[in-house]
């Protein structure tokens, strides 16, 4: 039974998970401590005959302590999170040699534009695929993302990656898969009535498999691009 994170398959996933567990352990400990204290107080200081409450109005020292400790822990957390965040989302830090893949989302469909054999986006040998992203394991990719109609959000749980696609904005996201296999992707920003079925898959190949797949696309790509390109979406219909 899978009732927890899907198995990680990207370069950043492990770090995100570690950070998650750090926070989980800290907050878990705080949770147990505080709730236990609450329970102990409730039992110990319940109303009993012969004992009255003590008229205490506060304690500056205690308050300084319990202000300072969380403040230090929390600021540390922020400092730990910051570098990882910049690495994932700051496009200036992305690897130079990454392969660029285009992604345009429209209602309930993901349209990927592949650079073709020459590895460059924006020329004649580009080809398109709908709802399927083919990647080579351990290679750096940068998705050049935009949306045609409304705000969508690309969510690949196994990669721990999420990024909104906003119409009118050009947003980039770095991906580096570390495990071969097929992984699901979803839209995680309400985008219309068919939001729930805006499903796609990421197929992570070995370099050999990818080359074979690329060859097999030679004939299919032209037809696919035409089909994926400008078919009007079924507006409003789920």
């Amino acid at each position, binding site marked *: 039974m899978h009732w927890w994170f899907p198995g990680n398959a990207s370069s950043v996933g492990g770090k995100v998970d570690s950070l998650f567990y750090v926070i989980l352990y800290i907050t878990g400990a705080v949770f147990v401590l505080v709730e236990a204290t609450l329970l102990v107080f409730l039992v110990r200081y319940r109303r009993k005959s012969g004992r009255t409450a003590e008229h205490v109005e506060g304690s500056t020292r205690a308050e300084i302590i319990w202000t300072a400790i969380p403040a230090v822990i929390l600021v540390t957390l922020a400092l730990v999170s910051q570098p990882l965040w910049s690495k994932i*989302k*700051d*496009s200036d830090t992305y690897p130079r040699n990454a392969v660029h893949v285009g992604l345009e989302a429209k209602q309930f469909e993901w349209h990927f534009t592949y650079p073709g054999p020459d590895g460059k986006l924006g020329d004649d040998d580009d080809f398109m695929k709908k709802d399927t992203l083919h990647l080579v394991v351990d290679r750096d990719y940068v998705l050049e993302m935009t949306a045609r109609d409304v705000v969508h959000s690309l969510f690949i749980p196994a990669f721990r990656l999420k990024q909104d696609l906003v119409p009118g*904005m050009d*947003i*980039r996201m770095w991906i580096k898969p570390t495990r071969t296999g097929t992984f699901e992707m979803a839209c995680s920003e309400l985008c219309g009535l068919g939001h729930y079925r805006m499903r796609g898959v990421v197929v992570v190949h070995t370099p050999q498999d990818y080359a074979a797949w690329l060859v097999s696309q030679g004939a299919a790509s032209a037809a696919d691009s035409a089909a994926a390109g400008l078919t009007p979406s079924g507006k409003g219909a789920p």
Partner: protein
Amino acid sequence: MEATEHKAPNYIAVWAALAVLTVVEVAVVYLHLPRRLMVISLVFLALWKAMLVALYFMHLRFEPKRLLYVVLAPLPLAVILVVGVMHGFRGP
């Protein structure tokens, strides 16, 4: 009465100042100054006029300090909102 304790300001003088500042503003537009200089001077003139209205017509100059704090409270928020959002668009 709190309102009568201060001597009434010379409203006509304030009015004259506002009128002159408005004329200066319009003049600045037609002077063909460098864009940046024009914007800065216009913003400065507008704030000056707004201050005159707030301080004299709305009597803020003669009110207790505490009321002044109430009134000034939203201004930093307005700046934070505009600056924050403008910064937010220089995206990845």
